[in-house]
């Protein structure tokens, strides 16, 4: 196990280095400069400013500078938000995104599992069809449609919840529901099909033959196995949602990180592009790593190291 973890950690660092290098050079292919007032500046004036930021240096020099700073843990300063450290910017903005994402994933997973469970138990019943319809709708209708509807009906027309802001729990209800729709649908769909497969397998039949109650079969035997694909799914899904949904954050005025990434690319804010990319990459790699370890916990059949056979 320790050997496995160590090996994986090395791979993770290498992966990150490759990502950082690739992103850096690809980003430099973007035409234009990160200047905010580029439209109004003459080329001579632009030169003065680019010189100051070292953006006129040859690319390899810039790369070495950036990587050296990166190893010191310095992500640099933003161009668009004058001289604001990129690490501070990410820190400030990830909070709301992560909070909301966490809430949505937890809520969505619970509801999704229940829906999938009910559908599987009562296969081909009205309940099953209803759950499937919900799942299909949830996957095919984009979340911003739900967001818009929720906001209009439950904040403007019937002001039960506030329209948009980030002041407390009541402000998170509508965006959480809007975000969780996709989670609910995805989880419910997987849950149903996995559970059906597990329920028809031999060992469940054996359990039934032994006279174990259906409740025990469900909770102790079927559910545990059916959860494996859900966990595979949940890792990346959680990262996706917790790193911010651009559209939902825009609609509900949430000060999250979703917009930041897009905006940094549009404005050539080099340091922020790098910072956010690396941050996303680290999150993703770490989550995939955790998921791999979790596999073993849930299902001993999946071995982490091929050594002991």
């Amino acid at each position, binding site marked *: 196990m320790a050997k496995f973890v160590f090996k994986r950690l090395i791979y993770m660092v290498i992966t990150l280095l490759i990502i950082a290098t690739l992103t850096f050079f690809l980003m430099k292919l*973007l*035409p*234009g*400069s990160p*200047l*905010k*007032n*580029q439209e*109004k*500046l*003459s*080329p*001579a*004036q632009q030169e*003065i*400013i680019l010189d*100051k*930021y070292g953006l006129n240096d040859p690319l390899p020099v810039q790369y070495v500078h950036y990587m050296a700073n990166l190893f010191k843990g310095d992500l640099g300063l933003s161009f*668009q*938000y*004058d*001289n*604001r450290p990129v690490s501070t*910017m990410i820190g*400030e*903005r990830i909070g*709301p995104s992560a909070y909301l994402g966490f809430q949505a994933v937890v809520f969505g997973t619970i509801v999704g599992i229940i829906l999938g469970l009910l559908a599987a138990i*009562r296969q081909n019943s*009205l*309940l099953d069809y*209803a*759950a499937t*319809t*919900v799942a299909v*709708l949830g996957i095919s*209708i984009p979340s911003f*449609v739900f967001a*818009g*509807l929720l*906001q*209009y*009906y439950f*904040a*403007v027309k019937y*002001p039960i919840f*506030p*329209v*948009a*802001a*980030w002041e407390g729990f009541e402000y998170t209800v509508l965006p959480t529901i809007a975000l969780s729709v996709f989670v609910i649908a995805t989880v419910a769909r997987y849950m149903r099909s996995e559970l059906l497969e597990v329920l028809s397998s031999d060992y469940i039949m054996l359990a039934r033959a032994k006279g174990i109650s259906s409740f025990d079969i469900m909770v102790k035997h079927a559910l545990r196995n059916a959860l494996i694909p859900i966990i595979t799914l949940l890792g990346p899904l959680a990262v996706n949602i917790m790193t911010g949904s651009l559209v939902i954050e*825009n*609609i*509900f*005025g949430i*000060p999250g990180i979703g*917009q*930041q990434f897009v905006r940094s690319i*549009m*404005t*050539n804010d080099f340091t922020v592009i790098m910072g956010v990319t690396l941050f996303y990459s680290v999150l993703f790699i770490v989550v995939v790593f955790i998921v791999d370890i979790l596999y073993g916990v849930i299902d001993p059949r999946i071995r982490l190291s091929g050594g002991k056979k």
Partner: protein
Amino acid sequence: MKKKSYALFLVLLLAMSTFLAACGGGGNDSKEKAGSGGKGSDKSDNVLNLTETQDIPSMDSALATDTVSFTTLNSTMEGLYRLGKNDEAVDGMADGDPQISEDGKTWTFKLRDAKWSNGEPVTANDFVFAWRKALDPNTAAEYAYIMYDIKNAQAVNEGKMKPEELGVKAVDDKTLEVQLQNPVPYFKELLTFGTFLPQNEKYVKEQGDKYGLEANTTLYNGPFTLDQWKHEDKFVLKKNPEYWDADTVKLNQINTKIVKDTQTDVNLFESGDADLIKLSSEFVDKYRENEGFFTVKESSIFFIRMNQTKSEWLKNVDARKAIAMGFDKKGITDVLLNNGSVVADFFVPEEFAKGPDGKDFRESGDKYLKTNLKEAKKHWEAAKKALGQDTVTLELLNYDDDLSKKVGEYIKEQLEKNLDGLTINLKQQPFKQKLDLETKMDYQLSLGGWGADYLDPMTYLDMYVTGGAHNQQGFSNKEYDKLIQEGKTTLLLEPEKRWEALVKAEKILLEDEAAIAPMYQRSRAYLSNPKLEGVLFHKVGPERSYKWAEFK
């Protein structure tokens, strides 16, 4: 189990019905409500709620470049003068008009007794420090060039002189003397621009890199102070009791929420959580009859650049005139924009700069290149003859936002229909990429815009001098160059003659040369709480002033 399935069915039904309802009659529903305006009508607490699409990029006046920064700085700080009604410069830190020397090059300002929010007095040195800082190349200020009218400013900014050599000095604590390179007649108004705001040297040095980054690492001397600044979420301004003119300020607090979605903006207005919002074109018809609906003309002019270096056709003046007159501009302003924007048959905008006679520049100047299909066709035929070709394909470079795309497609359709043998290919590029192509002059036609930096026609006209940094289309006319040069030098002390020269220059640019094809002057549609009064809208620098705003 039966009960459970019933409940689930209900949930499903609800989900379905909300979805279907939205597809069907959502529009009608909202129309009934539209008339009611903002709720929460009790405004006796004088708290103004606003939205902004973007956070404040910088509270350091030397670094600010955008409207959000300039507007917030305008509320929380004060320079020698500030923009008042009709964009006239009214007293700020300066106590009365400046003393101007005979040659117009030495301006002496007397400062009033005013305090920073930490209790320290505002002194002449605060201006000297801030201006030197803005021009110091190490600051990398992107609006440094706005100060180039001050003696030695350009040399300082280019690193050829030390910041101490800048033509500005504190004679004593309350007297500031400024030497000008050129005695520009609009210098007093120019001083209202954000880059000219003072900064307290001691405080700024104490804060170091943190200055302007947080609410509590910035000093204020304006009508309001920045009380709370939650990045990317909201910022809160509170009335500044230390402000010298605090009696005039009626609002106690201004909350600005960052909202990036236009529909959310409208919803916040409907629920009474916002008192003043910008309306995008698609909402204008719905709210046009609303009591709080109004439009404000801005100084931005949108036009088609015609690059004379990349096409034989665009080198031909007849072809350029045909293009400039060959499309219906009204279709853009009335249908596509629908927000009060006006057709531009000019380059220097309306209601923008007043001449020495007190009249608007547009009253002195004429209208040029009006839409005229007959004339356009005539010029087009002449161009064909001169070039000996019957057909041509031109590329139109465009921004990639929704509105610009629509405008681009409209122009293509109009020109192809009206000018026989012309094919237009549209090329949409992200903003930065488009700028890059323009700088490299790697385009044929391009939809462009230009906003004013200061209240003088020169902010538009000096763009098109031969070899100018923003000419970017190979336009050159000797007489035009001469007129602009005179307007910037010899005629500065003869305002009437200067004005005539500028009128003449615009005429050459458009009527004689058709260097560009003006399309429209932009306006913005707003929706406001009807009780809100006294918000001033400006054409340069800050978008709005709240110093005189109140709820009636």
